[in-house]
């Protein structure tokens, strides 16, 4: 059999980083012409902060989407997590670790529920996670009118505002979580099985993969990532915020970042590195528009266009590959 056109599997840079570089270059020029400076200390730091929050959620979202599922409950998990964290700490530095632990347990519980609904009860992921999200929304709307609890000052300092050079600690956390997720996907059986389940559940099943277990694990990890994002937001805001997740559109934005990052919405193809690229792209656009003081509505239009364009580009590529 000929070795014709048999390149080793593509390990090239995802296209999203090309788009990111272009966006930053153009943005930098436009802002410069406008008389501003895109990359000064404060804008860069705030860009990375935005990226850290969205990034933590999106990395988790990548896992479930790779497995062919989806999580629409993340926004509510974030809100809930900020409250759990802030109320458990109640301003005391001694309670930081138990609070973080509790948040992770609670979010893992939500993930477990999502996962079981999707696998055991065969509820469509869209509906199952939306339902669980609304459940949480009910709890939050009923119990809270506004901010509650106080985040421990040490955590606010460390995770919310401290930097190493230009890099906020929270962004380093994102890098660490991304690295862990990348490692899990490429070097553990769980990762290999997850991609297989997303690629073709039947093939995975016939190859001896326990599909349900893999997918439940992915949902638990996804929710825990949202929990981490909640802890970060609590440290940023200094208290628990019952609507921060939904107001930040973390559910849809995280899915958008995953898709822009080149992960197939149907599962089975993609990875977390691309997702971080997608997150940075969305955050950069935010930063550029903030600098230019663009109208908020127009900003949304541009974001919409970018998301559609990204998906269209990937669809075209997939078509060419198939041909």
């Amino acid at each position, binding site marked *: *059999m000929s070795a014709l056109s048999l390149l*080793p599997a593509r390990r090239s840079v995802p296209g999203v980083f090309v788009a990111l570089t272009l966006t930053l270059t153009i943005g930098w020029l436009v802002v410069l012409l406008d008389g501003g400076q895109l990359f000064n200390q404060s804008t860069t730091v705030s860009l990375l902060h935005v990226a850290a929050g969205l990034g933590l959620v999106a990395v988790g979202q990548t896992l479930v989407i790779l497995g062919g599922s989806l999580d629409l409950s993340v926004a509510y998990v974030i809100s809930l997590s900020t409250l759990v964290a802030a109320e458990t700490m109640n301003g005391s530095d001694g309670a930081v670790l138990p609070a973080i632990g509790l948040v992770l347990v609670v979010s893992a519980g939500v993930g477990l529920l999502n996962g079981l609904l999707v696998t055991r009860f065969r509820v469509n992921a869209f509906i199952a996670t939306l339902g669980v999200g609304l459940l949480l929304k009910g709890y939050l709307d009923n119990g809270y009118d506004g901010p509650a609890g106080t985040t421990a000052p040490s955590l606010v300092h460390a995770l919310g505002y401290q930097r190493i050079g230009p890099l906020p600690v929270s962004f380093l956390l994102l890098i660490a979580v991304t690295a862990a997720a990348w490692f899990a996907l490429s070097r553990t*059986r769980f990762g290999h099985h997850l991609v297989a389940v997303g690629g073709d559940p039947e*093939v995975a*099943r*016939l190859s*001896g*993969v326990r599909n349900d277990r893999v997918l439940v694990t992915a949902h638990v990890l996804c929710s825990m990532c949202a929990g981490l994002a909640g802890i970060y937001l609590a440290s940023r805001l200094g208290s628990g915020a019952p609507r921060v997740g939904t107001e930040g559109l973390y559910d849809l934005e995280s899915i958008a970042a995953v898709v822009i990052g080149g992960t197939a919405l149907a599962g089975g193809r993609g990875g977390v590195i691309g997702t971080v690229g997608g997150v940075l792209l969305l955050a950069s656009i935010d930063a550029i528009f903030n600098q230019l003081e663009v109208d908020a509505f127009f900003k949304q239009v541009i974001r919409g266009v970018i998301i559609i364009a990204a998906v269209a580009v990937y669809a075209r590529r997939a078509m060419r590959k198939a041909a």
Partner: protein
Amino acid sequence: MSDPPPTPLLTLRGIGKSFLGVRVLDGVDLDVAPGEVHAVVGENGAGKSTLMKIVSGGYAPDGGTVEFAGARRTFRGPRDAQRAGIGIIHQEFNLLPERTVAENVYLGHEPVRRGLVDRRGMLDRTTRLLASVGETTLPADARVGQLGVAQQQVVEIAKALALDARLLIMDEPTAALADHEVELLYGLVRRLQERGIGLLYVSHRLAEVFDLSGRITVLKDGRRVTTVDTADTTADELVRHMVGRELSSYYPDRAAPEDRGPVRLNLRDAGNRKLRDVNLQLRAGEVLGIGGLQGSGRSALARAIFGVSPFTTGDVTLDDRPVRLRSPRTAMRAGIAYVTEDRKGEGIVPRQSVLDNALLASRAVFAARSGRAARTTRVRELLAAVEIRGAGDDQEIRFLSGGNQQKVVLARWLALNPRILLFDEPTRGIDVGAKSAIHDLVRRLARDGAAVLMISSDLPELLGMSDRIVVMRDGHVAGELPAGATEEEVVALAVGTVREPAQ
């Protein structure tokens, strides 16, 4: 019947299987020795696939025993059979196109070192496995989606070998291969044989069966007809074993010569991805039967005429005018109707009413100005004419029997007054009573001047209904037979044991 070689790897005794009371397999015996290629042949529906699914754990047999490697086994599922050492290579590959060769080969049992997937080890072992079947140019880290069909097949085989398969089932392994790739598969099969792996080789193509196998088992109607040493038999003998049934049921009279009208549809060198150089004439007033094996291009022909996957080459004329049938819509407007083979998937909208289903095509293609009420009345009349029993027009169609559903589908097309009707397996899964009603209807349509093309795997039906029979093989016309042809003649053309008549 020859003596089985000593110490068989697989022994089947008295295997039986029924689906919904229909006996699909009955008392089948079969054995495979290590290093033997045992071919299984038979017509469509002879029970080959069911038998293979039983061996590979997909179905549990109702009766009989499966002995593998000296022990009686009851497989709980495909995975169970795999672990025991039985691999199956389906026509449709079970591979992930987005993953590498190594990742596919070791999916589900990735080698692990210190809790992590040993990627290097996985690549090395895959390379060795591939080399062991003579494949040295295929990189273990290539993405499977980039590979050709033949190479994907090698990956499938490597995947089975990675699980230490000692028996491999190959289901129509050459169906997807180009001619030059078939040679490579032959080499591969020989190497597997040398390793002492037993092979069950299912194929329609007798040439391959003779090239590769040591013994051949013929199945017919779920029973084993015979098992012969390949060296002691001939293709003609095999074909005789595969067919041979009395033409018992009643079929309506064929068209008299004077009933045959002018040529309605004429295909000249027509082809597309699945068809090549098809030359065919369909006359008004006749029923043209299309025979051939599954995947020979029968349905592809009907779908091309109906514009589902249109012809890309050649000429099509309709009543002597050249036409391009680009979509079902254009075909319908040209007066062509298509009763699909997949009634549940493509024929009916299960949750809509009988009336809505019958009105589907007329509503979709013709403007409402012709009068909604008149149209509905006409369709109601048609529904009455096709004699749907036990159902009101407002009932959801999914509650009807298969035969009645098919009559509704027919009424839908009759409402368009089609001049050409394409039937794809019109009586599959339909009870005997409804069957002959549909046969009568088909014949009546032809008598009223329609040109009918009917695809059927049911040989008695094909022979009983058709005024002429065109047999397809590998996407082209293998030959044409007049009314009164025998089953042997059809099968011989379909499997390619006789030289094709010059076109």
